[in-house]
């Protein structure tokens, strides 16, 4: 058999491979360069860009927990202007498929971020980080999510794909996804991990400087998988990106079979800066072993009965 065809499409967003670096976990791209050929990334999702520069949350910002980590960076970053001046051009120059994650504080900011990002060269898609600002319920509340996505959609030309990143919460994910699709998102990204907490065993006080954070890593993987599964059942034609605890080619394969057209790798990149390349290679080997010629044939296949898929020995 020839090497499997790894190309995939998330709506209008075509990718050379189905493995993306999740927002905030691949840095600006520069940090991964020593470890990964950046062209092996299906896409790099940037850290969420805010309108103004942000110093971020008081440290410590991350703590290891069972099979994962609890993290709150408070979106430290140079702000939109700094991002457009120093980070985006570097990615564009290297032809890295770039998805820009944006995070606004209010509808005016969301619209401004959308407009200025979408006008910049080298942007393949915009990902709306619905878990911002802190305390916002938009990533699991369809009403709030719809308003934000509609504001962003108005300011993005059709050629730029709009992704909405929602909470990886099986109780809300279908409703919220319907809302963001109605507002003009082309695909749904699963998703932000749940709110979480770690206490210091000595002081019995929160470890993180910002007290609480979000859970990421293998611990959230079955939850994210359930979201992708339920979404594909409810909305079989909607392109999905599945993220949450993906750290191997097999994890990626499973996420794709559950209905995702692409996967995002987050905290696994903090463990292994070469993770995207490795996972892509492992996935390719898995496909070859199973006699699956194209990623596209795999997407959603777990929902079909075995007689439909069953040409594998």
């Amino acid at each position, binding site marked *: 058999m020839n090497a499997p065809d790894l190309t995939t499409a998330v709506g209008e967003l075509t990718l050379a491979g189905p493995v993306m670096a999740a927002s*905030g*976990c*691949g*840095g600006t791209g*520069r*940090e*991964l*360069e*020593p*470890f990964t050929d950046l062209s092996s990334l299906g896409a790099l999702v940037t*850290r969420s860009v805010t309108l*103004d*520069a*942000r*110093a*971020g*949350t*008081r*440290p*410590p*910002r*991350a*703590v*290891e927990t*069972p*099979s*994962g*980590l609890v*993290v*709150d*960076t*408070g979106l*430290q*970053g*140079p*702000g939109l202007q700094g991002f457009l001046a120093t980070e985006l051009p570097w990615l564009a120059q290297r032809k890295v498929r770039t998805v820009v994650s944006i995070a606004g504080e209010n509808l005016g900011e969301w619209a401004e971020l959308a407009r200025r990002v979408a006008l910049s060269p080298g942007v393949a898609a915009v990902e709306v980080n619905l878990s911002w600002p*802190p*305390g916002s319920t938009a990533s699991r509340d369809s009403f709030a999510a719809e308003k934000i996505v509609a504001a962003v959609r108005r300011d993005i030309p059709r050629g730029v794909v709009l992704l909405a990143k929602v909470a990886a919460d099986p109780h809300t994910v279908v409703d919220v996804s319907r809302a963001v699709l109605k507002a003009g998102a082309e695909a749904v990204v699963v998703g932000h991990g749940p709110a979480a907490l770690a206490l210091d065993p000595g002081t019995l006080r929160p470890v993180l*400087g*910002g007290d609480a954070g979000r859970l990421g*890593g*293998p*611990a959230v993987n079955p939850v994210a998988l359930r979201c992708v599964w339920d979404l594909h059942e409810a909305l079989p034609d909607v392109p999905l990106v599945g993220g949450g605890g993906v750290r191997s080619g097999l994890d990626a394969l499973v996420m794709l079979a559950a209905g995702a057209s692409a996967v995002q790798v987050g*905290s*696994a*990149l*903090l*463990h*292994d*800066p*070469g993770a995207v390349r490795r996972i892509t290679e492992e996935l390719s080997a898995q496909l070859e072993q199973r006699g699956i010629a194209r990623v596209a044939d795999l997407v959603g296949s777990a929902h079909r009965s075995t007689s439909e898929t069953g040409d594998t020995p």
Partner: protein
Amino acid sequence: MTATDRGPVQVLGEVLSNKRTGGYHHLTLVAPGVAERFRPGTVVALAVGGELSDRLLRRSIAIYRARATGAYKSTVELVLAPREPGEAWLASLAPGAVVDVVGPLGRPYALPTEPVPCTLVGSGLDAAPLFSLADRLKDRGCPVHMVLAGRSDQEVFGALDAKRAAKTVVVVTEDGSVGIRGEVAAVLPEVLRRSGSDVVYAAGPGHLLHEVAAVAEQHGAWSQTAVGTGLVCATGSCLTCVVPVVGEDGISRMVRACTEGPVFRGDRVRWGDLGTVPADAWGAPHTAEGDS
């Protein structure tokens, strides 16, 4: 080496030996590519727990020594203490065991261009990287003086080594079990005066670095301080290991200890504000409070 080979590498390292010395473990890894790129002050980030482990975060450890040309080609030596399960796992590795290594990472100690006297100050295990630094300084003709500190004799690292590495050695312990009883800040002014040091290099906890930076400044010496932080990815991606540092332009920024550090000029770090986001830092919220 070309500019592109100077970046870090990711390799499967093999444990060559693992010996106990006092309360510490001395681990030697065969890690091709790391020693060639090593400069004193840089670190390696090790994955812990082996293949079946779900421990996500790497342990960052300053390199003690590196040899690019030995019987085993490229080795790095590390000193560790089993303070938490990941370090305990590393400390338990037998020769032949395999560890995923990323390194060398971070900004090294800056070396003086002239053969000026230097004082190296280290507390406990954090003193480990000062020994290869001492070698490099001596290669440049710099007279080297050392101050080693710890709570007790058990905690002081490398006092014997130091006798070879440095012209003079002062050992300070909190309990007086070896050397002078007291604090580094109490003995350092005299060491700097006697040695006429132009540069002070330091490694240890924040409060010690703060004191060293202050004493160096009073003495008119430069200081180069290596901060240890809760390093997470160690490659600069995750923005979790940040410290407040004043830039050339006078503006304070939250910068990554793993990438812009771990070595900073001592007079640039806002020691009193470590572990916080100062209200005047670039991008800080305008109220004194942090994020909600």
